[in-house]
């Protein structure tokens, strides 16, 4: 039992580290050029520009801070929950753009030009979503107050 719990904790830590890294990186890259990120959101043609500008300055901070919070012992589930929420939205947006046949650059990592292969982007987000879900579940299973 003891050994199993130990391994689980290590695995959880690795997942937390990895997911935190991805989100912090994504947030920082977007913060490099919020105006460009706003334009990328515009390209999805899902929401009005007024909203996109707000999201462009707000979302990156949620990414960075939730990423950091993922590494704090007591804020893990909150952070992972927020990230799951974001990922669901990202997947939905990508799927919507894909269905409509939009040719856009993803905007996933700010203004760094990424090849927009929808299948790959959605798959990647699903993996992240499952990782965040696993962390949520694993932390709860762990039952140790300080992770």
């Amino acid at each position: 039992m003891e050994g199993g719990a130990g391994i689980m904790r290590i695995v959880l830590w690795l997942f937390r580290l990895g997911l935190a890294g991805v989100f912090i990186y994504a947030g920082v890259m977007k913060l490099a050029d919020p105006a460009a990120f706003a334009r990328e959101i515009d390209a999805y043609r899902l929401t009005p520009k007024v909203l996109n500008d707000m999201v462009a300055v707000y979302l990156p901070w949620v990414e960075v801070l939730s990423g950091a919070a993922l590494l704090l012992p007591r804020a893990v589930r909150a952070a992972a929950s927020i990230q799951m929420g974001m990922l669901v939205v990202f997947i939905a947006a990508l799927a919507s753009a894909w269905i409509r046949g939009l040719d856009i650059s993803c905007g996933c990592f700010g203004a760094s030009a990424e090849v927009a292969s929808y299948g790959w982007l959605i798959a990647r987000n699903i993996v992240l979503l499952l990782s965040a879900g696993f962390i949520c579940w694993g932390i709860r299973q762990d039952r140790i107050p300080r992770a």
Partner: protein
Amino acid sequence: MRRTLWQVVGLLVLCVLPAVATAWWHPRSPYRAEESGNSTVVLADDEVTLATALAWEKAVLWVDARSQADFEAQHIPGAVWLSAGEWEAGLFEVLERVPEDGWVVVYCGSERCGASREVADRLRDEVGLKRVVVLHGGWDAWKAGQE
């Protein structure tokens, strides 16, 4: 569960302050460059404006990276259609018609599409062409310039 909920709310609220600060002070805030004119065009390293490309006159080979349907409907006069899906076919023509000491300018639909960069990168990396650039604004920019 309740604690997690409060933490989620807290984190989301916490992000508002840096978001406002970003909107206000970031040199590339979406709230800064409000005018739609040419004054604040931010070009990537491999992009050129329509004006620049037109100034090269005959020393340009236009490459259309959009869908075949789009190309056949309308394209920049003299452009070669080259897409990732039909690479070999288009590439032959590109190589035949590349002007000596000239430029290859790749375009896709708009400012935000990724296909032109994909094609441009392949031309540089796989084929070894040096003077390959992407048209900022894509087909939209061309049409606007025609009016």
